[in-house]
């Protein structure tokens, strides 16, 4: 038997449980979730916080055959005896495992600022992080200040603003995402957020909070019924560290997602593979799929996930591929486009026809296409500029696209020459051309084109008449 215990009940843990069942895992499958809430989409919390989605809408479908213990706080792992100790409603529970999976996620950072942090380290009243549904329930409407220039801050601020909340986004850099995008792109991002109703205050940090107010480093004081902390997260490695597993920034795993103890695996935000941590929901899904295959005896190896930061905000279309350092790698060609009027920006680093890094703003098709090409390790199109500017595709240079005798009526495969012959034979109106060639009689879409040709040829004849015999045309 291979009884699997998963510590965690977030999206990564849920996905793993679902995939294990999908691959026929029949033995025990237990999830230990700290929150009282069934598994839910963390990604959608900004919509819940903003009131666009009711709580049940967030819930993930239950995994048949999985035992889920909610409100269960794991206290220790006994690797020797392969047991997990936990508390639930004050009662200790013990869970034996053959395979243990750590999916403990990440914990939001709470800055050590007077009035923001409780002595215990948690957020003070009127202050909340944005990691759980309980966090969202701590928001009490009115004026909201979102602290932090991270993607989550941008997403939360724009979701709240879309529902009519007064929202201020305070970020430490000159603009949100200052460590990912330059000032030009950051300025466009700020402009889009402002247009969506978010007040953006750059180059500012919180220095003190008093009830209803927040003082900033630049001396301003904001009205703030709720302060939302989006100042980053840290992989939750506490249990792993206490159990003596190798831990760096996250819990260190190999390409089979194994920790330094072969019967313990880790995945999602808490794990560290090849130096990567906090890989986001897509990466976590990929790891869960891989681990489910590994645990059910299928061949599978985990590889680095492509690093793509796709901001989930309807106010701003932004995607960052790779890290800022990737732009400086040797042998890359760089292309930068700036369209200040239409707020479009693209900076792309290319090597061997592959994108190695990119910052794309306001260019939806390029964001979708380049992201997909990067993820599947495919080559870029030859006409990269056309893609970035969303220009209509160019006909291939050696294509028959510019045919000497184009088909005018697709439905009846009538070419221009055939129409012209019919015209010369006396079919001088659209109905006459239709009965002579069947053009326009299918979908009717070419009606206008045929009419225009008709007129053109008629004018041509007149011009000819005027040229050769001016007296006739007067």
């Amino acid at each position, binding site marked *: 038997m291979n009884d699997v215990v998963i510590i965690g009940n977030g999206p990564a843990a849920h996905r793993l449980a679902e995939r294990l069942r999908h691959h026929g895992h029949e033995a025990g499958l237990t999830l230990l979730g700290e929150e009282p809430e069934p598994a839910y*989409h963390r*990604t*959608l919390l900004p*919509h819940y916080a903003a009131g*666009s*989605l009711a709580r*049940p*809408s*967030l*819930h*993930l*479908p239950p995994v048949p055959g999985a035992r889920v213990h909610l409100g269960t706080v794991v206290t220790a792992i006994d690797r020797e005896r392969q047991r997990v100790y936990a508390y639930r409603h004050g009662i200790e529970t013990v869970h034996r495992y053959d395979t243990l999976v750590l999916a403990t996620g990440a914990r939001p950072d709470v800055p050590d600022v007077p009035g923001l942090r409780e002595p215990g380290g948690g957020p003070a009243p009127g202050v909340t992080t944005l990691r759980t549904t309980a966090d969202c329930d701590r928001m009490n409407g009115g004026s909201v200040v979102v602290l932090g220039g991270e993607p989550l801050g941008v997403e939360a601020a724009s979701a709240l603003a879309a529902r009519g909340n007064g929202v201020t986004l305070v970020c430490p850099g000159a603009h949100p995402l200052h460590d990912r995008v330059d000032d030009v792109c950051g300025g466009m991002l700020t402009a889009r957020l402002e247009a969506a109703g978010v007040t953006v205050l750059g180059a500012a940090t919180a220095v003190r909070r008093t009830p209803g107010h927040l003082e900033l480093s630049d001396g301003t004081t904001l009205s703030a019924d709720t302060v939302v902390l989006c100042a980053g997260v840290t992989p939750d490695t506490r249990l792993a560290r206490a159990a003596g597993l190798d831990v760096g920034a996250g819990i260190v795993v190999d390409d089979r997602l194994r920790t330094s103890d072969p019967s313990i695996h880790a995945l999602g935000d808490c794990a560290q593979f090849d130096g990567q941590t906090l890989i986001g*929901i*897509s990466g976590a899904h990929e790891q869960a799929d891989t681990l489910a295959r590994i645990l059910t005896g299928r061949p599978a190896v985990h590889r680095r996930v492509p690093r*793509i930061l*796709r901001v*989930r905000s*309807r106010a701003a*279309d932004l995607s960052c591929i790779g890290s800022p350092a990737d732009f400086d790698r040797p042998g890359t060609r760089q292309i930068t486009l700036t369209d200040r009027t239409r707020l479009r920006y693209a900076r792309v680093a290319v090597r061997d026809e592959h994108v190695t890094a990119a910052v794309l703003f306001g260019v*939806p*098709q390029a*964001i*979708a*296409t380049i*992201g*997909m*090409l990067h*993820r*599947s390790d*495919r*080559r870029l*199109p*030859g006409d990269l500029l056309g893609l970035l500017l969303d220009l209509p*595709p*160019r*006909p*291939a*240079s*050696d*294509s*028959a*696209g510019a045919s000497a005798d184009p088909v005018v009526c*697709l*439905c*009846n*495969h009538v070419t221009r020459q055939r129409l012209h012959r019919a015209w010369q034979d006396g079919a001088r109106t659209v109905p006459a051309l239709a009965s002579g060639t*069947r053009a326009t*009689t*299918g*979908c*009717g*879409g070419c009606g206008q084109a045929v009419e225009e040709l008709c007129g053109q040829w008629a004018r041509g004849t007149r011009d000819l008449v005027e040229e050769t015999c001016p007296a006739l045309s007067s």
Partner: protein
Amino acid sequence: MSEPPARVPKAGTHCPYCALQCGTVLSGGEGTGVTVRPADFPVNRGRLCQKGWTAPELLTAADRLTQPLLRTGDGRLAPASWDTALDTVAERLTAIRDRYGPDALAVFGGGGLTNEKAYLLGKFARLALGTSQIDYNGRFCMSSAASAGNAAFGMDRGLPFPVTDLRSADTVLLAGANPAETMPPLMQHLDRAELIVIDARRTATAQRAALHLQPVPGTDLALALGLLHIAVVDGLHDQAYIAARTRDFEPAARRAMAWWPERVEETTGVPVSSLRRAAHMLADAGSAYVLTGRGVEQHSTGTDTVAAFINLALALGLPGTDRGGYGCLTGQGNGQGGREHGQKADQLPGYRSLTDPAARNHVASVWGVAPEDLPGPGRSAYELLDALGSDDGPRGLLVFGSNPAVSAPDAARVVRRLASLDLLVVADFVPSETARMADVVLPVTQWAEEEGTLTNLEGRVLRRRALLPPPAHVRGDLQVLHDLAVRLGQPAARYPVAPAEVFEELRAASRGGRADYSGISYERLDAGEALHWPCPETPEPHPGTPRPFQDRFAHPDGLARFAEVDHRGPAEETSSGYPLYATTGRVLAHYQSGAQTRRVAELLDAVPEPYVEVHPDTAARAGLAEHGHALVSSVRGSMTARVRLEPTMRLDTVFAPFHFAADGRANLFTHAALDPRSGMPEFKVCAVRLEPVPGATP
């Protein structure tokens, strides 16, 4: 003998090809040649595409089958008399049945057969052969939409409204449908609407769209889930409608919650902003329709994909209202009627289930047999073809109105299965690729030579009328079934040969079924009545049901069902050896396997040979240039095709039409992964590589 000058004979009928069934008037006759002109019929209103205009040419195809053919000892197909051919077939069928049992005999029908033929073919299989092994090529066409429609609405009527309703639409979503090529005269009804087209290619239809979403092949389900997600998060869904007219919204919506727009973008390659725009265009329209076609249906996830689009339509409150609806654009000429009258593996006439005891009782009583004499459900089309000649599979096969050697997925495998049969009998009017493999070929009538009914894509029953007598020695399919049945010891009266007589029996058999035709008669149709099923027989003539869901859906509680579906992806993913997605489809000039349209000079001239559409960069990287010859290969096989460079193609996708024969068959590379519910094969996506044909100049 002196005769008065003959009036030119005329017949008001319908085009022989697609499910739009454009009204036409045929005139002329033997000797003078047949001409066609479009009629002012509601679906086409005086329009016709090139296939329809040139259809008469097929009547005199040079290689038209005009006498039975029998495979001789030296392997040739040689002319034989009808008696010899039919005696041979009956003897060999009997021998196989005696030795291996009735399920060693099988029948493969077609979605182009008239209602009468489809009905009699099902009856023949179940009674004269006694086999459960009957299915038809409509399985490759409509089955996913049918199973999703039945589950959602309790009834599968392709379009539950006349196509003319589309004229008032503000927004129409065409999901995997390309009517500008596949049924051009339909486009006039879409002139007013803003179109949203979902297609991996920039088709002729997509070029007219206000918004074209161009997903990676095999990801339509994720796309549909994403549109529902946006509808829910943005509050676009119609909560009053959902509460009053539907069930099971929550579990369906819960699946969609996992498909936030950025995840859908990552999976489909469709930009988030386009997804949002599509959802809002549908929701903000005064009148909106969601229509699906083969592009989203021909997948191993086809049923769920259609269900996801139905979910979207239901969430927006469209089906069964004056504000719009959902429908599928049926493909084959009688794709709708052909799926209702018993040539489907699990069905009895009237769209009845073969496993429902009440249905069995009813049909058995109409047929004058005991219910226990009716076999149970058999294999679905591809499973049937794949079982041919195997230890527990059929050893004798009768094919009517189908050309699976070209049209079935993984065609080389299907051809091997056909070749392994003890007996292959094909009834057709031209020597199709399948007919050329047959032991016995039976020449049958075609459209302008026969009477009958077809049911078009909107569920309207139409009359097909004869202009000409068939050539000497050509028989109608009904006659062939009759002749065979009698030789197999069946009572002659059980297999009428007059279409009107068969229709009368069909009416009785369908009475009380979901597709109830009992109130429809040739007289009413010939009087010009527009009758859509269900049309039960009532004391006052029933007016038919053009819009069946206006008051209630066809489930007993009257409510439509949301389906809890999730994205699974295609059965075959790309790999380093097969790095591209291939998708297959139709071109305007050809129809299905091309057995008919490749014999019409004008159509062959328009599209003379198999080709593959490729993005210029993808072609260049594969060492291919415009007009060169490419091998398009999957792990299953290779198609040889002329290269067409098409800059609007996705870089990761190639397209090939499936209308061509021999090594130009696109189905040599397609994947036979089947939808678990509908049995639909995955025609629309598989993994391929491109390379120059060895030895050819690129």
